[in-house]
């Protein structure tokens, strides 16, 4: 179970998420800064809801408000086409 891959873009596994929470992370941002989750090509589209559920269970905080900031672009765009 702990070897489950949660973020495929950056190759982050469940155990690394749990470790980040152990080290004091209480938000998606906090976990991301510890192991790069959600920093890859899809920008957390798949892993963010899963991490939110883990946070709710482990930290209990209302992690609805702790999501990654929505930043441009909405999807990858070539630099020359901006």
């Amino acid at each position, binding site marked *: 179970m702990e070897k489950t891959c949660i973020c495929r873009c950056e190759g982050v596994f469940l155990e690394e998420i749990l470790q980040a929470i152990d080290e004091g992370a209480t938000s998606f*941002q906090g976990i991301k800064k510890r192991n790069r989750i959600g920093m890859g090509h899809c920008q957390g589209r798949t892993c963010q809801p899963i991490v939110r559920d883990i946070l709710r269970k482990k930290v209990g905080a209302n992690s609805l408000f702790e999501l990654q900031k929505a930043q*441009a*672009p909405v999807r*990858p765009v*070539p630099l020359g086409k901006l």
Partner: protein
Amino acid sequence: MKQKVVVIGAGIIGTSVAYFLSKKNVNIVLVDAKDIASGTSGACDKAIMLQSKKWGPALELAIQSATLYKDLEQELQQDLEYRQGGGLILIDNEQDLKVLQQTVEKQNSIGLNVKILTGDEVRKKNPYLSEKIIAASWCEEDAEINPMLTAFAFAKAAHKNKAILRLNCEVLDLVTENNRILGVQTTHGKIYADSVVICSGVWTNQILKTVQLEVPIIPRKGIILVTEKLPKIIDCNILSGSYIVSKLQKEQNSIPYGIGLAISQTKSGTLLIGGSREFVGFDESIKTKIIRDIAKQAIHAFPCLDNIHLIRSFAGFRPYTPDNMPILGEIPSVQGLYIAAGHEGDGVALAPITGKLMSELITNQKIEFDLSPFSIERFLESTIS
């Protein structure tokens, strides 16, 4: 009894101060309203550049800091993605070249090894560079590091040395008596201390106002673009000449949005492309025009980026001061209250030396560096006159 110090702010500066203090015989509590590297230190690039520093004491500070960085991975026992890969400042017009030549002469005069390369020489270093680049300055001493990893590693090492970390713990008030610091009031109770160090960057005035003080640290927003992962195409720090002009210009921006190119590649393969400089308070929104203009500058220098995907942009707030130098030292009106903030975009480069000097100052050790140019008094005096 051991001296007790509270460090406010767990960015790269606060964690460095806590780490260097933790090597001395001191009890430390490091507090942060949020988390390690949750502010400016988690929303910046990764350059440790010497040739971009303002001439004078700030450059001397940066040179000493660069030396400390060389052994930091070994000292902290952690991979910080440190690399002394050198740095380039790109020039695409004769006018900027003249200015750069003068700067390089000055830098050489104090022994900083910077040289001017021709367009062809620089393209030999990096074949992806545009034909429009007519020259560049090259400094072998320029390096890079992952600032988030560094802040976490400083905090971890401080914790190992018995420092206490209090995250999600916001300082509400400074506790003083007879112009002396007694501690801090936080959302999780009072912490008493002999000394308190404010390392709160752009949020410094929020802390200082509780003792009716103010410093001229203003948030300066910088936007950085992140691309998809690429094979290694850039192996050093690269700035454009306009980046330097923009860095040193005052509040009246002559370059719209203060756009100047700063580009580097992370260990994971993404490119970090900066940036802009704007005074817009704490407004985090990102204008499409700025993203487009930064992308244009990147393509101007590296035409091969035209078809490379942008995956994210982010905004960070750099703690600007009017003379582009940080504020380091004790606050004269409150004994035991120290400040180490206002590094603007040099926080990454100056973190180790800031931590080292502040730890020596707070523990009353002899300091082999003249900190007087960085004293808060330079701003207090100007308000009186």
